[in-house]
């Protein structure tokens, strides 16, 4: 593992100016912000504007309506659960794919991203076929809350795996070997040497998984049954609002979801910052 003094230098305020100089910074920031503005910020601004078009009172009315609250609670609960599940199982998967050898590993590695490439309709259809009323393995959880979790696990599976994999691949083994030769057990090596290095990667993947889980509609809408107050997630609620002609109300709930996701993403980013800082101290 490379000494991290240079990374620390980039973080500490008042340190030597960043790599590349000021014009480089301005240029990259210019490119990045322009792109982000056109692609992301403008659409979000339009949504925020739309959400408050009918006034704050109407905004609050939609957002606090019992159906919206029920959908929001369900969405957040399942998203958090799926993200944590991904954090653990995704890391295990990445570990096995990088460090282990078994027949068919290359094949497995090449299909990890397929939950993205498959249209969500097909994802929903296959999950219903496998785990629904006509399940060949006798598992029937379709049209329940469990099915929501299932669909979300499917669409978020690649995230943690793929954010941890490159870090693991670049990880310098010397420290681990040194620790082992000093008598440290496998768990200790993992906990004290590997984990701190892949933790930022895990956090990145978890952030992505959470964001996706909150916003997913395609696979969930087919398999959950969408029963209001019971198995209806926020994205479906928002869609129903749009379809009923209430785009301001839809935008309101979408903005609330966005706000919660944004706050969580900031928190994860902060956590990541703290973790890397603590490591260097």
């Amino acid at each position, binding site marked *: 593992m490379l000494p991290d003094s240079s990374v620390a230098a980039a973080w500490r305020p008042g340190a030597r100016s960043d790599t590349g100089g000021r014009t480089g910074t301005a240029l990259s920031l210019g490119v990045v912000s322009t792109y982000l503005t056109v692609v*992301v910020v403008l659409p979000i601004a339009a949504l925020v504007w739309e959400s408050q078009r009918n006034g704050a009172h109407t905004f609050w009315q939609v957002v606090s309506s019992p159906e919206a609250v029920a959908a929001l609670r369900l969405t957040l609960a399942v998203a958090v659960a799926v993200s944590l599940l991904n954090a653990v199982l995704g890391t295990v998967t990445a570990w096995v794919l990088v460090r282990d050898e078994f027949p068919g590993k290359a094949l497995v590695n090449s299909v990890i991203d397929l939950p993205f490439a498959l249209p969500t309709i097909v994802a929903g259809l296959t999950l219903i076929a496998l785990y629904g009323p006509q399940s060949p393995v006798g598992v029937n959880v379709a049209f329940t809350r469990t099915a929501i979790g299932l669909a979300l696990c*499917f669409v978020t599976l690649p995230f943690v795996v793929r954010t941890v994999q490159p870090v693991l691949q*670049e990880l310098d083994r010397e420290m681990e070997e040194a620790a082992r030769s000093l008598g440290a057990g496998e768990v200790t090596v993992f906990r004290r040497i590997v984990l701190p290095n892949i933790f930022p990667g895990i956090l990145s993947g978890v952030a992505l998984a959470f964001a996706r889980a909150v916003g997913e509609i395609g696979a969930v809408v087919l398999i959950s049954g969408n029963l209001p107050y019971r198995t209806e997630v926020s994205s479906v609620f928002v869609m129903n609002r749009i379809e009923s002609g209430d785009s301001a109300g839809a935008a309101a709930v979408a903005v609330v979801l966005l706000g919660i996701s944004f706050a969580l993403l900031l928190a994860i980013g902060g956590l990541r910052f703290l973790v890397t800082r603590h490591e260097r101290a």
Partner: protein
Amino acid sequence: MRRHLLRFVALVYLVAILLAPLAMVFWRTFEHGLAPVWAALSDPETLHAFRVTLLVTVIAVPLNTVFGIVAGLAIVRRRFPGKGLLNAFIDLPLALSPVVVGLALFLLYGRNGWFGGLSNHGIQVLFAWPGVVLAVVFVSLPFVAREVIPTLRELGDEQEQAAQTLGASAWQTFRRITLPSIRWAVVYGVVLTTARCLGEYGAVAIVSGRIVGQTETATLRVDDSYQNFDLTGAYAISLVLAVIAVAVLIAMTLTKPKEQSV
């Protein structure tokens, strides 16, 4: 022992959540033989749909890749205020459901939208391929950045600094030191981005106008097949999308780092 346990856990998870569904797609595609598959895939409308999907992907992926690398470098290597905000903004597109993405793009580029006047000047954004590109770029934005950032953090910039003290220019440093070191991150990022572009349905369904033979993408074709009870066709098209995604992964992992890769 521990290794076997880890392997077991990973494989059970993968089989249940990923491999079984994929096998099911495979099986459902060929369930009724090759003829319906061929009929579905050789339909001119389907072929055109694949062209639209590929066109949109070929535009969106390089854009997001360049953005991801530039943004990743800026966030990890440079100092500026609001870094945390920028970081969070990059992930935000994922949190919007595709229906909301469609709504937002309508609000911007629709007839009564902020930029509704564009269509009066002959620039058709919605219901034409630029709208589809915008939607797809939006939903696949974070992946390269998210792959590159943790890897860059892990690596540190010692080697870059060494190169610069030896007189290398910024571009040379980037091309010969930085880029190869983030190779795997970029590979996985590109593969994720490509897969996402190929599979996007919800937002594209809204902004494309679903015009058969013009803006209908492969995923919209899947929906069309599904509507008409042609499940074999739906699965067959999905299988082709999956094959393309895997092919991209294989292609990217095969371009070996004898020299640098882009």
